[in-house]
């Protein structure tokens, strides 16, 4: 596994290992890599002790991580806050549902769904991002515009109840949503239960490793440069609009990855996934974990999803209050994020 390999590699090796161990994420010591490898290993063996239900549930906590990582890239590393990542999540899910639902018998139908779902997310982000970044709107407007995009999409999808909103043989379903979305297939293997769990773990690990290399590579540095000083970066010869648009599209595609996993998980999607409550959640995960550390964001996304599930399935009416209070407390007392703050303290003490 590449994580294990990376942990053995010299800190300043070459290629992927060097990028992975670059300065722009927490957890660079051999010890930290060992912990990461152990964490991954425990995820790999977990199903041996878990029921299919538990594995599927854990997969749910994991499946939002790509979206959160994308937002971390965009906001933490790029300084652009999007409140509308769920819009791209929803688009990927819906487009997958339409394409895969219309090709129920073709063996490659679901995979065409994956490609078109991600393509649709990226395309929407490219068009919308073009309007935002090439018009050079003020930074504070971007979160509002993206939030309005998400709410608009939610409203529109909610209006697709009638039969005229049937694409091929798949009805969009209005507020009730699109049901019976087929699961990914390879040959006779359908990605459900344990198979879905491993698929999710694999995708999350790939997204994380890819992004960690990306932020430590040149493009990632340019993005951070833009966050620190937009004009300075432009005057080093970078087309800032284009760099931001690129990050925006990448983040949207990652949100699309989460959207695709989500429809695998529930075989179902509704307009509420892009509603007001949902739109804010990725921001919560990223802010509470520590927006400029991918690892922190991944850990926090997993834990917060678990927390909110545990609280609410215990019938706890304080779930929203607790999450809100957590958010306020973190922003006030650990503005770098809980996970990042804890990690840095531990690291300092060790030294």
């Amino acid at each position, binding site marked *: 596994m590449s994580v294990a390999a990376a942990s053995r590699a010299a800190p300043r090796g070459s290629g992927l290992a060097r990028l992975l161990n670059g300065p722009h994420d927490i957890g660079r010591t051999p010890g930290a890599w060992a912990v990461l490898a152990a964490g991954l290993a425990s995820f790999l063996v977990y199903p041996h002790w878990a029921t299919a239900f538990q594995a599927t549930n854990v997969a749910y906590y994991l499946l939002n991580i790509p979206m959160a990582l994308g937002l971390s890239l965009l906001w933490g590393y790029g300084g652009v806050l999007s409140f509308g990542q769920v819009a791209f999540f929803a688009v990927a899910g819906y487009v997958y549902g339409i394409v895969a639902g219309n090709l129920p018998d073709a063996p490659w139908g679901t995979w065409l769904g994956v490609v078109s779902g991600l393509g649709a997310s990226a395309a929407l982000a490219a068009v919308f991002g073009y309007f935002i970044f090439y018009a050079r709107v003020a930074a504070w407007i971007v979160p509002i515009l993206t939030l309005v995009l998400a709410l608009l999409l939610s409203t529109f999808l909610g209006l697709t109840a009638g039969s005229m909103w049937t694409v091929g043989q798949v009805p969009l379903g209005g507020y009730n949503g699109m049901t019976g979305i087929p699961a990914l297939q390879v040959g006779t293997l359908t990605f459900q239960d344990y198979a879905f769990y491993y698929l999710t773990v694999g995708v999350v690990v790939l997204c994380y490793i890819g992004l960690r290399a990306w932020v430590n590579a*040149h493009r990632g540095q340019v993005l951070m*440069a833009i966050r620190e000083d937009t004009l*300075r970066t432009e005057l080093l010869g*970078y*087309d800032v609009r284009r760099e931001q648009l690129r990050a925006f599209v990448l983040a949207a595609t990652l949100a699309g990855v989460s959207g695709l996993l989500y429809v695998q998980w529930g075989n179902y999607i509704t307009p509420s996934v892009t509603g007001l409550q949902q739109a804010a959640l990725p921001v919560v995960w990223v802010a509470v974990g520590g927006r400029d550390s991918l690892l922190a964001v991944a850990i926090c996304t997993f834990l917060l999803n678990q927390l909110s599930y545990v609280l609410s399935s215990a019938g706890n009416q304080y779930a929203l209050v607790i999450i809100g209070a957590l958010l306020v407390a973190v922003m006030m007392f650990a503005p770098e994020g809980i996970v990042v703050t804890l990690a840095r303290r531990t690291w300092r003490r060790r030294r």
Partner: protein
Amino acid sequence: MSDGDALLRAEGLCKRFGGVVAAQSIDFALRRGELRCVIGPNGAGKSTFFSLLCGIQRPDAGRIVFDGRDITRLKPFQRVRLGIGLTFQTNRAFHAMTVAENLETARRGGAAGDDVHFQTALASFGLAAQLERPASALPHHELQWLEICMALRRGPLLLLLDEPTAGMSPAETARTAEVLTALAADGLAIAVVEHDIAFVRQVAQTVTVLHQGAVFAEGSFAEVTARDDVRRIYLGHVHEAAA
């Protein structure tokens, strides 16, 4: 000096903000390998001129030709890609990155020329030994030098510097002047907007004096500083001079 072989030529640049005229018909030319200082009292339009050259502002009238191309309508990053490197009045290196990362970030913003000037500067400023330090740990003058190195990283034909020695000690200023002179001698064109007369005296081959948004005087340092009207505007007899 003939304008025919000029690397950078500005013709009739005008810029007004509401009722304020920041630049009126500035003509300016710079040869390859020339080191030019642009001076002028506060409010003379130095900063505006600088931002017109690098594209932060668009002129209301006039045009800018660089290396034989009209760059008047180009965006800042496009100008940089054609071979203009620049630094700002205030220190704007990326503090969250290391020195090496700062330089790395500066390296690949599009097609790059050769980087002999960069290597010279890096060695002369003594930054090569500090590549792994975070930029935030550098003292002020080294940050300024780092910025100059960053501007040189892509091998520009022209270096635009906005008050590069602001806040430096006399020794540091002198060091900066030395390096810039050496770079110019190697064939790099440099234009410096500067306040510090000592620095200007040390480096300048030619000096351009801006006043009230226009070129007031141009010539060698000795010629220009000898002129009474130039002395007057620096001493504040603005009205008389403008008349």
